[in-house]
């Protein structure tokens, strides 16, 4: 079951720092997996995909290549989004991003592998 594998990814991420949770989302905005409750995950997923794809279009416009990650910084929380292979993205909600980039990118690699396996 992929659920299990996704859950494991978030257990790993969540043990690495002050992480509230996160989502795996298809590039076009459909929810694949969410570790967060009490949110409207389908809407959150659509917004995450908008964030990343808007960033891609903007970066491409200035010839800057593919964005490594998108960070949205609030007063207390941040959203970090990164691509996880051609079909998906990974987003996490953290209190502080110190040291979390590594964790995010590591997680994204795992997501990409899981999604590749099923093809």
């Amino acid at each position, binding site marked *: 079951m992929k659920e299990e594998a996704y859950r494991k990814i978030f257990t790993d991420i969540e043990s690495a720092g002050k992480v509230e949770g996160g989502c795996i989302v298809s590039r076009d*905005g*459909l929810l*694949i997996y969410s570790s967060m409750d009490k949110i409207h995950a389908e*809407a959150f997923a*659509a*917004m995450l*995909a*908008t964030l990343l794809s*808007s960033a891609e279009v903007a970066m491409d416009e200035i010839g800057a290549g593919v964005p490594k990650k998108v960070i949205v910084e609030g007063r207390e929380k941040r959203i970090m989004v990164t691509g996880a292979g051609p079909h998906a993205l990974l987003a996490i909600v953290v209190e502080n991003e110190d040291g979390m980039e590594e964790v995010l990118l590591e997680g994204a690699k795992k997501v990409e592998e899981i999604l590749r396996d099923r093809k």
Partner: protein
Amino acid sequence: MIETGIPKLDEYLGGIPPGKSLVFSVEPGVEESDVGIHVLHHNLEKGKRGIYVVSESSPKNVVRKFADFNWDVKRYENLTIVDGYSSLVGAPTEEKYVVEEPHDIRSYEDALLEILEKNGEQEGVIVFDSLSNLLDMCGEREALEGIERINKDAGSFGFATIYNFIAWPYKEALLYRIKRTFNSIIEINMVEDVATRQRLTIKKIDWNNNEGKKFDFKIFKPGGIRVYIPKISVIGPYQSGKTTFIKAMARNFTPVERMGATVGVEHATVDYKGYRAEIFGIPGQERFLPLLDKLGASSMGVFLVVDSTKPHEFEYAKRMLERFGGIPFVVVANKQDLPGALRKEEVKARMGVQGDVMESVAITGQGVYEAFERMVEKIMEWLNAR
């Protein structure tokens, strides 16, 4: 006729005639009781008699299973539980109807006959949770023979029978025998690409021609079973009324607006007549077109909303639509309340599209749900044609 209460499925079944037996063959991993509980609840609500034969888990769990959906099982005097579990594990029971010999299918027959005879002639449904368990406990051949007798008895009292079946990798021969024994087999599988949901396929039905029909659904707790459409996009020229159109039919609307214009993808959830759809609104201004390509992908349907007083925008609108390829679409000829608004035939002719054009006044909500209904019909047809 007996209904399942599962939207769309009832339409395909045309109701279950009393005396017919139906198996929900559920892929392991899907919570197998949920479908049976849903059917039972629907019939109890309609005042029909419901008999729930439990052998997978204790009768106490029935209360919890209903409560998961926010349903209070205690309310229903028309529900009878047959306890096939307690004597299996040697537990005490408070149930009135107990299967004394859980390894003997005849013991089930006895309990059921007693209830049916007491009940007299009143339509209802018997739900078995589960068939897999009966096969394991009573022996496959004996169980199926007994079940045939049960189905017949049930029919003569005006009941239909429903069996939850967990589709473990059983032997081909057994699956074949199951297929022969029951009047209808409905398969439920997980769809695990994105937007986790279940797919329901009618594998066998012997009272009409709807074999092979299928659709996707999701089980909501609370809420129950809904036909599920993970993505419908709403596109159209700048200020044609897309946001207003979405708001008019949605709950949980997440707007993304600056000074009256949409500047990002907006999302909404629509619940209507047993359907749930996730709606993605895509901004209309030309500079957002790159987003349309990225975020419009994997839509199952597209609403193209146009301002019916602005035919000069139709060409651009049509080009937007063409980016989606051949998926189901409905053109919404909006702002019908304005003077000079073109009627749907005119919009269709000027735009040069083959397909449905529906009229609406999004600000009052007029025509909005009609468009939604047409859309889901088209998506269902499209799914079934593939």
